């Protein structure tokens, strides 16, 4: 089995011990079975067990291992080792407080997500089996429900960097449109009211960083555009 050495530069910071963050140069032997960045990180962790990062499903479903890879947010488990420029620069997601090394505090991110009420609101008594949708109505939810809340998009958004406490962010707004677009939801008016705010929605200036980094290939800018379209429709 052929092996090769890969160089890494990893952001290291332990707020309890370190005065300030530092970059650690470290290398690791990878073989052809190591396909994704997470494989290399697993080996790095075996070499230096003090390196901290989150991971769980290792197949792009849980969204735990989001990090800044060579300057671009992405999931370690979905990023091919092949073609990565070396030394591979690994940093925590930008704009969120660092707990340790590549682990960030996602509280603010989830606070914004919860603020849009990410659940179906329907006050009718539940039918015996299920609330039905036509295939066309269901089609509209494609590209919205697949979000895994990894925070790659929101932490790539300058509007979220400047106002993480007030701007909902691309992930939250994508989820907001997921429920605005759902024909089974009855809270359209309240949802639009909740978003009609110069900070909560209108901080988005459509620079599309979110679309550029989304590891699931989703398009929050398009969803945000559709929310604005719904508001215009309601207004004129």
């Amino acid at each position, binding site marked *: 089995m052929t092996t090769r050495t890969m160089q890494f530069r990893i952001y290291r910071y332990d707020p309890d011990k370190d005065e300030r963050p530092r970059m650690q140069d470290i290398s690791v032997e990878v073989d052809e079975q190591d396909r994704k960045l997470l494989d290399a990180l697993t080996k790095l962790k075996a070499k230096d067990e003090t390196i901290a990062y989150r991971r769980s499903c290792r197949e792009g479903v849980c969204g735990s291992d989001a990090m800044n890879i060579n300057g671009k947010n992405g999931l370690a488990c979905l990023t091919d080792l092949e073609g990565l420029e070396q030394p591979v620069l690994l940093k925590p997601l930008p704009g969120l407080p660092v707990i340790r090394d590549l682990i960030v505090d996602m509280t603010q991110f989830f606070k914004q997500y919860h603020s849009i009420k990410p659940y179906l609101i329907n006050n009718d008594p539940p039918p015996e089996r299920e609330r039905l949708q036509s295939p066309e109505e269901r089609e509209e939810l494609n590209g919205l429900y697949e979000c895994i809340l990894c925070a790659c998009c929101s932490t790539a958004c300058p509007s979220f960097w*400047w106002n993480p*406490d*007030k701007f909902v962010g691309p992930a939250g707004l994508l989820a907001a449109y997921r429920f605005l677009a759902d024909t089974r939801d009855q809270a359209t008016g309240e949802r639009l009211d909740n978003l*009609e*705010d*110069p*900070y909560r929605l*209108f*901080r988005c200036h459509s620079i599309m960083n979110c679309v550029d980094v989304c590891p699931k290939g989703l398009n929050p800018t398009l969803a945000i555009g559709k929310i604005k379209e719904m508001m215009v429709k309601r207004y004129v």
Partner: protein
Amino acid sequence: MINRIVVGAHYGLKDWIIQRVSAVVMAAYSLFMVIVLLVLCPTTFDAWRNVFSFGLVKFATFLFALSLFYHAWIGIRDLWMDYVKSVSIRLTLHALTVLALVGYAGWMAAILWRL
């Protein structure tokens, strides 16, 4: 006062629409003026004055300037909102921006109709 996050001003859509409409007005005016200047080719002060003596040019220029000022208001306001965290300083800057732009609008109208 306890420092709580307060959002929900319930405005923004109107500004967002106006920003888009004013952008279209400015783009259309730019195109219109290129055509007017290509047709009339003013080279002297009197020729330039002549261009602005047409009612249609005055009308279009006035709309362009109003669009520019409103567009600038939204853009500058967004800058203050992003970068100035102190509410009192932000409010002061908002007021100063509005006052300056309203002043410019009056000044522009005076120049336009004096020509």
